[in-house]
């Protein structure tokens, strides 16, 4: 089967934009703060990271599921006068898409430098699955084909796609559990991670069943947090404090056919990455073999696997082998989610995986390695527990953002 995606988008923005600053709050379960306070904290940290004054930030974008605070409040608190802002509805995979839209806004001459943020009390206020006030809201129209079947949470929604992959390709629970095992190893070297404990395949398979094929430890950790990245033109990027991460290409919220109910168009074990790959690779000018590290969205263990497979990091159907082979491990050929990702560091709708890759490309991830008298990390590349998580010679990274099986986004960056 060949894709009919038009991959002829102009390439002239390749390498023309960069991420100059990244920041986040701590990851907690019970922030005791508003999303406004969290958002301000993360944006402020990203500005500090870049060393950019408020007077040089003039664009702001955010996404949420109506569980956040819009840009004007954050900008107002930080004394930022905006030439452009837009707050959109959306969850996972919006991070990469909004970085693309930020490039578009700057390219159109609307503004110069855009902060993209996500702020969420994802544990203490609005949890996955629609409990509390959301459960009492009337269910109408199109949702009557799903919600009354006890089919609302992300895990419930995605489970038929995951199950069918096991049926189609013989993928085993043990293979998929390795995603969590490896991400937990990475998290054990991340002081910021909510879960730093290393786990085994047995731990995953013995954890309680949520919705087959997902055990508790196949699911990400809901946390309260905010996250932010700052995008500007490459030629301005070197005016700031840190080495920029140059953007080679972005693909945003690419869909499978019949996105109204994507199961109508099979194979249902194929995800949006199948279509994204035909946009992102030509536009970035690189291929899977050029990527040093990935950030494959891990709302669940399965989401990392399905995406890596459809983007072409392995043959279709061999995702189980890929994720259990050690390739994705620190020290392996192409580490994935070196912060521990959503499964261990904290659930952020994808932002923390972009932040992590920016730091990796700078060669400056925060791990347990010693620092010199300038405060610079002296990486040991010893990936044992409580050690290093810096990838050696990290030059090109890819983020594989996920909304659902039928929708995803991608971002390829290089060391600046």
């Amino acid at each position, binding site marked *: *089967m060949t894709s009919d995606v038009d991959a002829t988008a102009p390439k002239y923005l390749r390498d023309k934009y960069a991420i100059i600053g990244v920041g986040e709050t701590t990851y907690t379960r019970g922030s005791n703060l508003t999303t406004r306070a969290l958002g301000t904290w993360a944006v402020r940290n990203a500005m500090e990271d870049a060393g950019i004054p408020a007077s040089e930030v003039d664009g702001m974008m955010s996404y949420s599921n109506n569980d956040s605070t819009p840009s004007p409040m954050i900008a107002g608190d930080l004394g930022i006068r905006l030439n452009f802002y837009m707050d959109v509805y959306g969850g996972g995979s919006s991070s990469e898409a909004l970085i693309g839209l930020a490039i578009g806004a700057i390219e159109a001459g609307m503004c110069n430098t855009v902060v993209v943020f996500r702020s969420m009390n994802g544990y203490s206020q609005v949890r996955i699955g629609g409990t509390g006030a959301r459960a009492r809201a*009337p269910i*109408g129209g199109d949702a009557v084909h799903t919600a009354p079947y006890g089919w609302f949470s992300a895990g419930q929604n995605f489970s*038929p*796609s995951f199950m069918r992959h096991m049926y189609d390709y013989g993928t085993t*629970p043990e293979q998929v559990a390795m995603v969590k095992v490896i991400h937990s190893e990475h998290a054990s070297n991340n002081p910021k991670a909510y879960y730093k404990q290393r786990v085994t395949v047995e731990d995953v398979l013995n954890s309680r069943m949520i919705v*087959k094929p997902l055990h508790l430890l196949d699911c990400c950790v809901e946390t309260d947090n905010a996250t932010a990245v700052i995008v500007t033109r490459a030629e301005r990027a070197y005016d700031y404090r840190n080495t920029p991460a140059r953007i080679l290409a972005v693909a945003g919220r690419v869909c499978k056919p019949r996105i109204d109910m994507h199961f109508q168009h*099979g194979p*249902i074990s194929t995800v949006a990455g199948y279509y994204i790959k035909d946009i992102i690779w030509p536009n970035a000018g690189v291929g899977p073999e050029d990527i040093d590290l990935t950030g494959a969205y891990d709302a669940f263990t399965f989401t990392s696997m399905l995406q890596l497979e459809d983007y072409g990091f392995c043959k279709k159907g061999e995702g189980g082998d890929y994720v259990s082979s050690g390739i994705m491990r620190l020290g392996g050929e192409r580490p994935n989610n070196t912060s521990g990702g959503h499964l261990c560091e904290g659930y952020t709708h994808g932002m923390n995986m972009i932040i992590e890759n920016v730091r990796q490309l700078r060669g400056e991830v925060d791990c347990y390695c010693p620092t010199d008298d300038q405060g610079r990390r002296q990486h040991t590349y010893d990936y044992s527990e409580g050690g290093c998580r810096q990838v050696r010679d990290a030059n090109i990274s890819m983020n594989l953002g996920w909304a659902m099986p039928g929708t995803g986004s991608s971002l390829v960056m290089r060391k600046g």
Partner: protein
Amino acid sequence: MPEGEYRGMNLTILDVDHENTAYFGYCAGHDFHLQQCTACGLLRYPPGTACPWCQNREFEWTAVEGKGTVHSYGEVHQAIQPQFREKAPYMILIVDLDTQKGQPSEHEALRVAGNLATPDGDLAPPELVKRVGIGSRVRMVFADVAEGLSLPMWTLDEDAEQPDEPWRYPQEYNGV
């Protein structure tokens, strides 16, 4: 306006939503109908406002046989809503209808969602859940919610030839 309470949820179909009002109205008569495009003749699910294959907005409601094969499923062990908790584990089935399977392209089908249910439309007990997996033959039944509003459900088709062993997730949990 079809409206009713089902397992703690307030289901409401607005009058202006003509497609869903008609669809659930047929279901209320325990009769399964889908929209059939008047131009290309293809059926579609779920109800929509144009033909996804030829963009024609005109359609006719056509009776469709509620029989098919389980294409995939999820099996919820930790339910979210209280009124599902007492019924867990429950299955969410994606069923390939026999009608129009593999059309208009190889991997397409009318894939109709529903829970695995008893013949009277209640959520299936664990003994039934254990017997159903990918490849199981199922037939449509209905759960009545309110006047003008019933939900399609799936039950094991006891009259059909079943696979020797339908494909189920390899790990049992709480005996299921």
